[in-house]
């Protein structure tokens, strides 16, 4: 008689059934690994058809409460690409600044409040806070500095309204940006401390041969511009996304699973950016990585938390550089006239590359929209990781195994369902 072990977790997201994990092992052999997600962007793709091209940043910003800037940036770049407009100079710098804010905010949240509890053995940050108050407070404070940047440049903390196709509605005052500098100096020190703290965690001994994919710019650690590049030979402009990658519908998930047409699973996110762009980090970020023994390429997915911390150091450095050089003046945006065309945008959301493609008509109305979010792109590689981690840990009891597998999913900071916030109440009527 065969022995069958199943581990099923159906509460990965706050909304039951929207994110789930299921694995099955028969006679010590892994037979089934499933990571299922519900994915709001598919709804938005249909929702945007017929809307004006100028509405895309505001609409797509509502897809995710934690990375609205990424959605705005991919959409404005795609629309500007379609209309043949380039946004440069100070406006481009401000876009990088607002992206720094989003990375600090998102990485701070994930490192301290979502992922650290896995490593320190707590059910959640709420449980962890009782014993490690200073860590949770540092995470909240880092997150707040990121929020402050997004609020100032973006106009509002969540779903920023100051970003538009062509630039911004209003430029920040020099004095307002200067006021952020002190907070960022603190944040840089806190980020450097974060690198040391998380590097001290215990890590499973595992390395995986990934195909890393990220946006790569010749001179900068990537936010919004550059080719889509991989360590296995891909080097294409954003417009080539659908030539190289394919999105396939999978029965168990509402999301489309992405793969490299020729090879299969690929990995987007901090580890991919870091491996493909290490040379473009600031000296202090490189030094922080070297101090904790992090090489120029990291293949242990559990160490993504350290890479995130190094990227926070970079984002603080970059934000401080931009604020220091900022000279107010000039128009807040460049004019963008619609024309019948197709545009593409690929930018680096905190959790990985986010690709947008729009076809617009002469009158600026959206004809088709395509959004490939990082978590959908990572879905297949997450399943591959689960298989590897499962095979390495079959001797663990079910509870410990489930913990380790969920931790593996959280290595990717997955954005499963970012758009629903209602409370689920359990009422004891006894």
């Amino acid at each position, binding site marked *: 008689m065969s022995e069958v072990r199943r581990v099923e977790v159906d*509460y*990965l*997201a*706050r*909304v039951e059934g929207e*994110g789930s994990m299921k694995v099955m092992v028969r006679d010590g052999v892994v037979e089934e690994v499933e990571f299922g997600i519900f994915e*709001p962007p598919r*709804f*938005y793709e249909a*929702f945007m058809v017929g809307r004006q091209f100028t509405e895309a940043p505001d609409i797509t910003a*509502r897809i995710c*409460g*934690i990375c*609205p800037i990424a959605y705005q940036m991919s959409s404005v770049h795609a629309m500007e690409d379609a209309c043949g407009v380039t946004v440069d100079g100070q406006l481009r710098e401000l876009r990088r600044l607002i992206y720094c804010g989003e990375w600090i905010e998102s990485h701070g*949240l994930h490192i301290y*409040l*979502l992922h650290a509890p896995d490593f320190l053995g707590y*059910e*959640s*940050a*709420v*449980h962890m*806070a*009782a014993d490690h*108050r200073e860590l*949770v*407070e540092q995470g*909240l404070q880092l*997150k*707040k500095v990121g*929020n402050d940047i997004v609020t100032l440049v973006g106009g509002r*903390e*969540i*779903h920023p309204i100051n970003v538009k196709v062509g630039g911004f509605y209003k430029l920040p005052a020099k004095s307002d940006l200067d006021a952020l500098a002190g907070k960022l100096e603190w944040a840089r020190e806190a980020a450097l401390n974060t690198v040391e703290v998380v590097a001290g965690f215990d890590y499973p001994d595992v390395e995986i041969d990934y195909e890393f994919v990220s946006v790569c710019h010749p001179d900068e650690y990537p936010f919004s511009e550059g080719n889509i590049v991989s360590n296995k030979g891909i080097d294409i402009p954003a417009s080539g996304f659908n030539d190289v990658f394919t999105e396939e519908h999978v029965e168990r998930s509402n999301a489309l699973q992405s793969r490299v047409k020729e090879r299969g699973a690929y990995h987007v996110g901090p580890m991919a950016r870091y491996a493909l762009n290490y040379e473009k980090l600031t000296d202090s970020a490189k030094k922080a990585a070297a101090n904790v023994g992090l090489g120029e390429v990291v293949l242990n997915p559990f160490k993504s938390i350290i890479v995130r911390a190094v990227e926070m150091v970079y984002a603080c450095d970059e934000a401080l550089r931009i604020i220091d050089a900022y000279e107010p003046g000039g128009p807040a945006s460049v004019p963008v006239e619609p024309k019948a065309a197709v545009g593409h945008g690929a930018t680096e959301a905190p959790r990985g590359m986010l690709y947008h493609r729009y076809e617009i008509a002469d009158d600026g109305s959206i004809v088709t929209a395509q959004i490939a979010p990082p978590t959908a792109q990572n879905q297949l590689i997450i399943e591959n990781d689960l298989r590897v981690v499962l095979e390495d840990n079959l001797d663990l009891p079910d509870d410990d195994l489930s913990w380790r597998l*969920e931790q593996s*999913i*959280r290595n990717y*900071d*997955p*954005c*499963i*369902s*970012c*758009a*629903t*916030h*209602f*409370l*689920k*109440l*359990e*009422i*004891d009527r006894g």
Partner: protein
Amino acid sequence: MVDLVIGVGNEIRGDDRAGLAVIDALAGKGSAALLMRSDGDPLEMIDAWQGLSSVILVDAVSSGSPVGTIHRIDVGDGPLPTMLASRSTHLFGIGEAVELARTLDRLPPSLIVFGIEGSRFAPGSDMSPSVAESVGTVVEELASLLESAHA
């Protein structure tokens, strides 16, 4: 006296709009209390109520009660009777944000949650008629509370 009313929700998800709809209606009545729409990260609430004494939170809930039921919960009485998704992979939930604030001694002295029972949460869905009716009831109740507090 109520210092701040926070409405939580998502504009495009049917009954999940309830909290935001309450804030919009109160704003239309010229309320003197601080009003806040929270349609993203619940952790922002912890900063928002820093230093305030009395806060009201309005949110859609899902408990199995009849649609439109209005739950009134005093957070000071104990943890929210919520199924905390304590190992959610992504954003914090409202319940977790409240409990984190409690652990960090950052809850306001008075925090009352008004929960409006919903059923339609899919993107693009309309608000249920009974939820819309309950939004009106909560708005009237809060408006009179805010008015008497500022009289």
